[in-house]
Each structure stands twice: as C-alpha cells, then as structure tokens.
C-alpha cells in the first residue's frame, strides 16, 4: 500500500498572501502568539539571566543583528562574505568619536550607524554591478585590506586599537539596547520585504533583466538595500565596541563574516527570523561547548553538518510549515 503525505492549511478561515480575516480570539491568538514569542523571549528573559549569560546573550544579539543584515542583502541578490566590514567600520567610527572627541555613546552609536552605512555603501558602489560570487569576493577582501591598512599605517591606534571607551551604565541596559535593535530590525525588515518595494527587491534577485525592462533602476534599489544593511551592521559594530570598551583590528575579524552566514543557513535564509534563530542557537552552543576544550570546534562543526543535512531548508521555514499546515498520511490506490 502506497502512502503519501497530504498537507492542509490550518487555522483561520480566510487567508491570502497578506490579508487575514479575523473572527475570534482563537484566530487572533493564532497570529499573535508567533509574533509575541521573540518579543517576550528576548525582553522578558533578560533580567533573570546570570551576568555570564547576559554577556553571552549580548554577543548573541550582536551576531543576530549581523545575520539579519546579511539576510537583507541576500534578498537583493547581494552575497556578503564581509559582514565584518560593516562591523569593523561601525566600531572604528564609534570608537574614534569617543576616544578622540569624547562623544557619549548616545551620539557615537547613531552617527556610526549612519556614517558606517554611508561609508560602506560608497566603498562598495563600484562593485555593485557585480553579481553573486564576484561581489562576495570583493566583500571578503575589503575588511582584510582595511585591517592590514590599520596595522601598517598605525592610524586609529594601530595594532593596539583604541582602549578605554565609555561603557554602557550596566550590562542589563546594554542587553536591552541590543535586543531592541534586533527586534526592530526583525519586524522592520519583514515589513519592508512584504511590501511592494520588497517585491521589487526580490525581483532584482530573481530576474534582474525583467525588473530593468519594467523601467526600474535596479542599482538605485541595490544601493538603498546595501545602505540599510550596512547601517545595521555598523550599528552592531558601534554597540559591540562600547560594550567591549575597545575598538580595534579584531572588529574586522573573520568571525563576524562567517557566523552570520552560518546562522542564516541553519535558521533559514530570506526570512529574517531564521538568521536570528540561527544566531541564538549557534552562539550559545559555542559557549556551552567551551567545556570540551580543544574538541569544541569538532563538535561544533559536526553539529553544523548534521543540521544542514537534516534540515536543509532551515529551522524557521520548517517550523512555519508545521504551524500553518496539518499533515496526514493518505493511502494511494
């Protein structure tokens, strides 16, 4: 007897791409609960964590921001192998403004986010025409070049970096700021991509010739998306640099380039929730595995491989499908 899986949409009665007809509390909860989980899960749990885990979750949230920014760029077909470029530039701008000019973090962080976004966009403007792997290569090389430039010319403190930056008043505030930023980026980007503007952006990734022939300047759109993504990445760098009280060459480290990609792949690309989930799985996991000493990387790598083989679509798309659809086995004749 052959069987096949049948999938049936669950839940609310009328549903289309983005219009929901709500008629009961049950249906409202059906939609509300999934959206409340990240908000409550992040903000509600934070005060109850031990200082050590607060620290872990600060760095997790910073990686989550970088991963969400990576996901925005990939939606427009921009493969970023250099989220560390955004992080490093954001951290150096905030660090320099604080170190040399004595600005408070209240000003350095927004200025670093916008300035970093602008600077990275200008740096990448000449290669915006490149697609896929070519753009990725340039993005990989830029942070490496910049960190060597700092080392060779000894500007911005050279290899010593800029120490003694103003920290956040306390760790909980730092955690709340990062988490609010993650939530804002998460819901904001999901909103953008669900709009008609987002449809055009996805179109550029899918079939750029068709978008060009619709009379749309695709480079304008790519530039806008790059600016938003780079700003969020620089914002993460500026936050991180004040939390570490230090800006330096480690800001351009490869970790900041690789982790966001791993998080996005594990969590499910182009969903924004996925990369965030991925970061919240991978970063704490790497902390827990510290107990294993030298074998840490082996287990970490093993986990990644098993995950990608078992759930190639990513965690979030899988969970989303299970939530929205009933599955049952039906017999075939």
């Amino acid at each position, binding site marked *: 007897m052959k069987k096949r899986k049948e999938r049936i949409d669950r839940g609310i009665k009328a549903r289309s*791409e983005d219009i929901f007809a709500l008629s009961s509390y049950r249906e409202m909860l059906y939609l509300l609960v999934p959206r409340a989980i990240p908000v409550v899960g992040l903000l509600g749990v934070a005060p109850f964590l031990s200082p050590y885990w607060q620290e872990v979750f600060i760095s997790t949230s910073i990686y989550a921001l970088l991963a969400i920014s990576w996901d925005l760029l990939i939606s427009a077909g921009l493969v970023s192998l250099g989220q560390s470029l955004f992080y490093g530039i954001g951290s150096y701008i905030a660090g320099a403004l604080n170190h040399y000019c004595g600005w408070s973090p209240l000003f350095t962080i927004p200025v670093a986010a916008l300035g970093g976004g602008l600077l990275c966009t200008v740096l990448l403007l000449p290669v915006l025409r490149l697609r896929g792997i070519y753009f990725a290569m340039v993005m990989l090389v830029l942070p490496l070049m910049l960190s060597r430039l700092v080392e060779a010319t000894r500007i911005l403190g050279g290899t010593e970096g800029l120490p003694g930056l103003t920290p956040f008043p306390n760790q909980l505030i730092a955690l709340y700021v990062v988490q609010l930023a993650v939530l804002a980026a998460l819901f904001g980007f999901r909103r953008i991509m669900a709009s*008609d503007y987002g*449809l055009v952006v996805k*179109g550029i990734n899918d079939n750029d010739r*068709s978008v*060009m*022939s*619709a*009379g749309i300047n695709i480079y304008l759109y790519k530039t806008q998306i790059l600016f938003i993504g780079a700003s969020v990445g620089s914002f993460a760098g500026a936050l991180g640099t004040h939390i570490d009280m230090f800006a330096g060459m480690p800001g351009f480290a490869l970790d900041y380039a690789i982790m966001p990609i791993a998080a996005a792949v594990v969590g499910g690309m182009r969903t924004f929730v996925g990369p965030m989930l991925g970061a919240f799985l991978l970063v704490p996991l790497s902390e827990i595995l510290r107990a294993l000493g030298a074998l840490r990387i082996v287990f970490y790598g093993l986990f990644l491989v098993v995950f990608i083989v078992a759930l190639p679509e990513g965690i979030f798309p899988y969970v989303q499908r299970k939530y929205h659809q009933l599955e049952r086995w039906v017999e075939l004749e």
Partner: protein
Amino acid sequence: MNQPPPLLKVSGLTKSFGGVMAVSNVSFELKEGELLGIIGPNGSGKTTLVNLVTGFVKPNSGRIEFKGKKITGLAPYKIVSLGIARTFQMVRPFYQLPAFKNMIIPLYSPRVKKLAGGKYGDRDAVALDLLEEVGFERDAHVAYKVAGSLPQGYLKRLELAKAMALRPDLIIFDELFSGLSLAEVASIVPIIEKLRFQEITIIMIEHRLKELFRIADRVLVLNYGEKIADGPGKEVMESESVKKAYLGSETD
C-alpha cells in the same frame, strides 16, 4: 512631402560579439502606429537587435533615435521611461506569487507614477484590470492563482500585460507566439489588434510567419545580422535573397 517624423529611427547599427557579427549595419524606420515584423533564421541577430534598441546591449556603432531623441547607449530603465517596453522570449515570472502580484513590479516603475500624475493608486486593482484585458477571466479567478500553476499561454499573456502596464508608445515582442498552440495564438491576436487600435506601435520578432503576416504592415528580414529585405510580407517572401536565406541556395 508632409510626412510625420518616424517614431523610431535606427541607422547603421552594428554589434559584434568577439569575431561574430551579430548585427551588421542595420538601418530602418518605424512610423507611429505601424506593426513591424522582424523575421530571420535562427542566429540571424533578431534578439540582439531588440537588446540593442532596449539598451540591454551597447552597439559598436550606429545610432538609435526614438521620438527624434538619441537613445543609443542609454540604460534600459531610461529607455523604458521614454516609452519603449519589451517582452522576453523566455518567460520567467515569480512562480510562487499569484499572477496579479507579478504585475506589481512594472506598476511600481517611475514611468507609471509619472503618467498617473505622481501617484501610484491601488496597484492591485490596476493589475487585475490589466490582466482581465489580456484574458485572465475575472469570474474564474485566474489572476489569483500562483504563476507556477498557469499554462504557457497564460504566462505569455502575463508577460504581455506586464509590458502594457508601462503604457508604452512602442512595444517590442520577442517571440510572443513561440511555444503556443494555434488556439492560444488565436486568443492573443485580438489583444494585439486592440493595442494597434490604441495607436501603439509594435515590433514583433516571430518565427510563426503565417500568423505574423496576417497582422504585420511590414516585415524586415535579417540574415547573418544583415538586413536582406524590408517590405510587405508577401513581397518579402517572394524575393530571391529571402528564399535563399530560408531554404538555402540551389546547388545546381
């Protein structure tokens, strides 16, 4: 001698890829409201010619004028904003999206906004109207189905509607009829005739000669990138050089 100026004027257009002459010294004019067919054997440079006129490919030499204005070398999106729309030979819609959502991208273009007086209006409603015009029956809710589930005939009509959404003065169809059944072609022909009634100028690249000759005012024949004939369909097919290009020269 009181002729209106041509809508499109192509002179001495040449493009080579490496050593291959894709389009070689092609000149032609197009009057407003005319329907020009472009035919020729495979690899004769028809699609390259379209890509040149729409700005997707830059010519080595030659000049293209649209409404008396030089458009050679302009970016594709600028050419569209002047009023030239095109369709692609290979249709590649967003397969996961409903058909009417596929219309959003052209409706989002600056040209549409400008023509509508700086406002976009309700894009979904405009999309549904346009799709109905090209034969997406509103009662059957075809426009709400995902593009991936639609047959080729509907996808081609979707492509057509996307070009019409730009409210162009000149539409270039790159093999609109290819891969369609006779019945499907017959259902598209009235839409094209309606466009002509609205005095939209049309260029059709076609392999389906019979259907083309029925609607085209004039036919231009390309072979190895060169223009070998230009005139009414029947006349053109009688000419020796065209026969040779299509059937090969006689050996004895």
